[in-house]
């Protein structure tokens, strides 16, 4: 009986071994098979000024997008968490509607919106806020706006889930003890929502590191690591370097998620310890 239930793993083994695990093994080996020696590609990544700039850009854009998404996503989650019934459903529906439009289409939408003669520039010039149209597409700002737009739903959902599990009596208790709404938020709601904020930020940051479509269309001169990998492989046919870069992105993704998991486990343990003190 126990032996037969292993058969349930058969489909996933047939799918993931050749088309997921083998590819990872391939980029691993390829990254060490450069013509200039075993670790030459990794040395290139560390020393090459151009590649370092690309990695810096990728981190910078991902960090800014994470901050923007948090600043926009937290208030949305906060308000949605207090809604009940039909309005909560409508709010979540509105958040998810653009989420299901293809990334290519959403990036295209921002190409129209942020173009030199696009509606955003027309409005800003029209109300006299600026004199000349802003070149959103060249300075990376347009890229960050479009990526934030795409990433906000990813941060709203975990924060919303976290806020909904907080016992409303805790805020009420704080109010009875004389805390105004701001203090109730800062002393009760915010700290209790932080674990889910961490989850949301991690998802947004890691996803942003791998973005390809939006930076290619809206990044202007700015290059991020996915574009560099694609260019090395497709145009320059430097597969070892492309693989080394891919391995670095892969390891970063794993390390960031492992850190999140570790911090979750650590906080759970201290939480238990504290609960033990109270008991």
């Amino acid at each position, binding site marked *: 009986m126990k032996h037969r239930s292993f058969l349930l793993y058969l489909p996933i083994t047939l799918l993931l071994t050749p088309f997921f695990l083998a590819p990872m093994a391939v980029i691993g080996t390829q990254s060490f098979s450069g013509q200039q020696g075993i670790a030459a590609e990794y040395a290139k990544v560390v020393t090459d000024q151009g590649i370092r700039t690309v990695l810096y850009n990728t981190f910078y854009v991902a960090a800014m997008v994470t901050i923007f998404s948090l600043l926009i996503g937290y208030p949305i989650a906060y308000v949605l968490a207090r809604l009940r019934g039909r309005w909560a459903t409508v709010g979540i529906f509105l958040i998810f509607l653009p989420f299901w439009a293809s990334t290519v289409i959403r990036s295209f939408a921002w190409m129209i919106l942020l173009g030199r003669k696009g509606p955003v520039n027309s409005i800003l010039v029209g109300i006299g806020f600026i004199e000349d149209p802003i070149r959103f597409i060249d300075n990376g700002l347009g890229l960050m706006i479009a990526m934030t737009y795409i990433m906000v739903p990813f941060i709203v959902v975990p924060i919303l889930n976290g806020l909904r599990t907080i016992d409303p009596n805790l805020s009420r208790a704080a109010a009875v003890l004389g805390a*105004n709404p701001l203090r109730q938020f800062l002393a009760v709601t915010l700290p209790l929502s932080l674990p889910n904020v961490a989850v949301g930020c991690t998802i947004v940051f890691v996803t942003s590191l791998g973005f390809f479509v939006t930076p290619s269309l809206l990044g202007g001169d700015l290059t991020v690591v996915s574009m560099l990998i694609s260019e090395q492989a497709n145009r320059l046919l430097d597969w070892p370097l492309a*693989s080394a870069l891919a391995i670095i992105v892969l390891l970063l993704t794993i390390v960031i998620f492992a850190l999140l998991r570790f911090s979750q486990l650590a906080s759970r343990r201290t939480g238990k310890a504290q609960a033990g003190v109270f008991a």
Partner: protein
Amino acid sequence: MSVPEKKLWAAWSRFLNGLVGALLIGFLVPILVVVAVSFQSKSYLSFPPTEFSLRWYQQFIGNDDYRSAILNSMLIGASAAALATIAGISTALAVVRAKVPGSTIVSALSVAPAILPQIVLAIGLFPISVWLGLQGTLWAVILAHAVIGLPFPFITVCGALASYSNRIEIASMTLGANSFQTFRLITFPMIRPAVIAGFIFAFAASLDELVLALFLSSPSTRTLPLLLWEQLNFQVTPEIAAAATVILAVTSLLILAATLLPRLGKDN
């Protein structure tokens, strides 16, 4: 709290609600702009559109590239979602019900394709696809999309299996049904809504995917996002907006079906 202070906080709360309401509606603006641009008559992108016209839809319908790309995308999406769903169901059964050893690592691997940047998988899959002789065929993209679609049916079916006790399955076995009969008569009807939702999410993920298609397809197996992408890099015309609007309409219907079907199932 004094009365004016209370009023101040109430005003702040209303302001916050209004701000979030405006943000949520603002989220629709980019989508609406694409739809609006698709109905204009000029041959370059101008907003707001001045004259209503369906010429870009006519051009879109008459365009053979779009027709074959839509066909490819549907074929790839349906096949990839089917493979992902089969693998997802059977893995979820192993992890949640049979509690086969190794479930932690298998669960992690089943969700990993959702987190891993697609460019990483694309770089690794290309040589394998060449080596297996799949490069340029529909199968190359189907199998790649089955991998990135896997997390969705796996997660939805795990959720459905965890939501009810396995006692009815045990009862079925006690009454003499073998494991296949139990699955067909008991388990599958219980998890069907989750299976349908997982299938549609996997299908939608395939419809949206560009990077893997960029590496693994040939001009004859070009998918819809890939065609849009090539057009955007070549020349931006409102025809792209018309195509995007049609895709938006189809995807919205799919998602609506994915969210409504499980509820209908519950009512019966």
